């Protein structure tokens, strides 16, 4: 824990470099990593059990799912202070910010509901019934489709963002965790933790068009549990966090074949790039640290100690 005087000093110092913000699920804090020095420069208290984390488009506001406080907290990134809470429904786990920069789509894990919140009026706009244990959330780049994945129902639920109604429900493998639109929104990728796969959907037809599978020598298949993933700047390569397999897979997004595996910390869940996507930061829950990967060389550079159970990560440019 930082002493108050030290916090005051750090807060008074203008941020020197771009940052990666990491939620620590079992510490109720955010660790802020300076991308130049690769060190933690600030530790910011949050509500209980912080998980999903994302910035507004202009990076003036930070949204954090404080799951056990049943709220989304809006934090001023400069001061680290909580500005106010947003109504989020019970047990918010993950969310996605609509391209309009205004509406948050929130998965309420305990309630089988997706909540849509207007961050300006701070009101709930809609609640949509989905499968058991919703978790992954994504909004298409054109803003017309929102996706919720449900962990026990094993589906991706396709939500029309205009009517807030489901227009398709597609089965995926066991325990879907994370969803993302890729290739300018023409493909939807959904990772399945227990199934050990990523299912690729054609967005226009909602039909399955591919499946990514993983195999690491010396690691039992059951332990290969894909969760978070990110695509490189040119969109040709995907990096997939494989949970208790303690590796990040490097996947060719054309052939869906795995090119290699990078050893990182224990139980790796989510990933975030720096601004030019030359560095990749992974949250390693069990070892309580963040691995920094050199994207071009596909090598782990450094391990940075953060709080207990790091969960999500978000990039913040500081303009310097």
């Amino acid at each position, binding site marked *: 824990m930082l002493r108050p005087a030290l916090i005051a000093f750090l807060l008074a110092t203008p941020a020197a470099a771009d940052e990666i913000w990491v939620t620590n699920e079992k510490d109720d804090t955010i660790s802020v990593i300076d991308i130049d020095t690769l060190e933690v420069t600030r530790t910011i208290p949050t509500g209980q059990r912080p998980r999903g984390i994302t910035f507004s488009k202009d990076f003036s506001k930070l949204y954090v799912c404080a799951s056990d406080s049943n709220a989304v907290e809006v934090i001023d990134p400069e001061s680290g202070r909580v500005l106010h809470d947003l109504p989020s429904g019970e047990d918010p786990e993950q969310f996605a910010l609509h391209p309009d920069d205004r509406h948050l789509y929130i998965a309420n894990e305990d309630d089988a509901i997706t909540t849509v919140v207007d961050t300006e009026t701070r009101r709930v706009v809609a609640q949509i019934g989905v499968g*058991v244990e919703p978790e992954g959330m994504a909004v298409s780049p054109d803003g017309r489709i929102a996706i919720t994945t449900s*962990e026990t129902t094993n589906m991706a639920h396709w939500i029309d963002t205009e009517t807030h109604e489901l227009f398709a429900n597609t089965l995926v493998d066991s325990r879907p965790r994370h969803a993302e639109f890729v290739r300018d929104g023409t493909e939807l990728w959904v990772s399945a*933790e227990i199934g050990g796969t990523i299912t690729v959907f054609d967005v226009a037809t909602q039909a399955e068009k591919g499946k990514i599978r993983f195999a690491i020598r010396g690691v039992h298949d059951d332990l290969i549990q894909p969760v978070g993933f990110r695509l490189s700047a040119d969109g040709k390569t995907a990096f997939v966090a494989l949970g208790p397999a303690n590796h990040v897979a490097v996947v060719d997004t054309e052939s869906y074949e795995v090119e290699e595996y990078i050893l990182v910390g224990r139980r790796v869940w989510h990933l975030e790039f720096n601004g030019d996507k030359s560095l990749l930061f992974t949250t390693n829950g069990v070892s309580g640290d963040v691995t920094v990967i050199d994207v071009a060389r596909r090598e782990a550079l450094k391990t940075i100690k953060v709080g207990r159970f790091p969960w999500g990560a978000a990039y913040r440019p500081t303009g310097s």
Partner: protein
Amino acid sequence: MRRFACLAAILCLAGPARAELAVNLAYLRIDVPAPPVLSNLDPVPGDLGLAGAEAGLADNRTTGRFLGQDYTLEAITLGAGTDPLPAARDALARSRFLVLDAPVATLQAIADLPEARDAILFNVSSGAETLRSEGCRANLFHTLPSDAMRADALMQFLTVRRWTDLALIAGTHERDLALAEALRVSATKFGLKLRGEKSWVFDADMRRNAAQEVPLFTQDLPAHDVLLIADETGDFSRYIPFNTWEPRPVAGSEGLRPVAWSRVVEQWGAAQLQSRFRKHAGRDMRPEDYAAWAAVRTIGEAVTRTGSTDPALLRNYILSPEFELAGFKGRPMSFRDWNGQMRQPIPLVQETAVVAMAPFEWFLHPQNDLDTLGLDRPESTCTRFKPES
């Protein structure tokens, strides 16, 4: 938005408005009175097992809603004195999927009914070895771990810790004797030494006497690292810890317990299942609840993936490598095709936390290391389960 409207129209036809598949399950329970126990602290819940089946049903229904599948569950409870077969026949007339909480002989008798021939039955109450071996039935699956699986989980842990010398105190009920036998067999399997055994035959009230009696009772046990206790009804075992002659940890039915499930399991997303169950039942989820939940979810998962309610087709799917059930214990669960037992990790728990999760990585297996727990293919003498083999 036109495209969405069209899609919505198409999906409406196939969607929640019309149930394409109706899946009726029945839960049949024989209400066998539990033997008296010394303490009244932990009464057996009246809805033990059933509440788990109901929680599984709720999960199935939520999923079914999006696929035009409707699930129902009929609960039938019979007194111990009544003949269960007419009720079972009656239930089988309405449902091809039976979840059974009954003694071994009753499970076998129901499985042997001509009406049950092509049905899928789940044993959610008995860990008896015979049901997974010579006394198995082709239509009877088991979601509760066998006594051997629990014993092996514990012995693996003791091996890892190198606590190799054991002593055993066993109660006199049938289930105590069965667990004691499983512990003996498992100790041999893992090369541990069972140095001494005693049978618990006290009739004094241990709530007052434990501190005087138990030290003396355990004084003549040979030297041991761990004291095992087989007391499946929870009669006397709670009075053993801290009252032993030598300061020794206690394991088995008390102390460090190998179980299918416990309220202290919180990782691997388990916290969500726990809170769903607590909301539903108003109490913590127990092993029998978990077994019933897994049985109902197995049918749900198989119906969802195959789009069929044909029991023969579902049976094949459940036994195929494609079948996976996410059971909140960190890895996919499946069924052994030689005796219908559900493969599952076994948490070793104490009162307030999970101590460890079996199997342990040092115990290797050519196919699936979950099969280092319980009767592996060559060990089981079950020949009826897989007719073609």
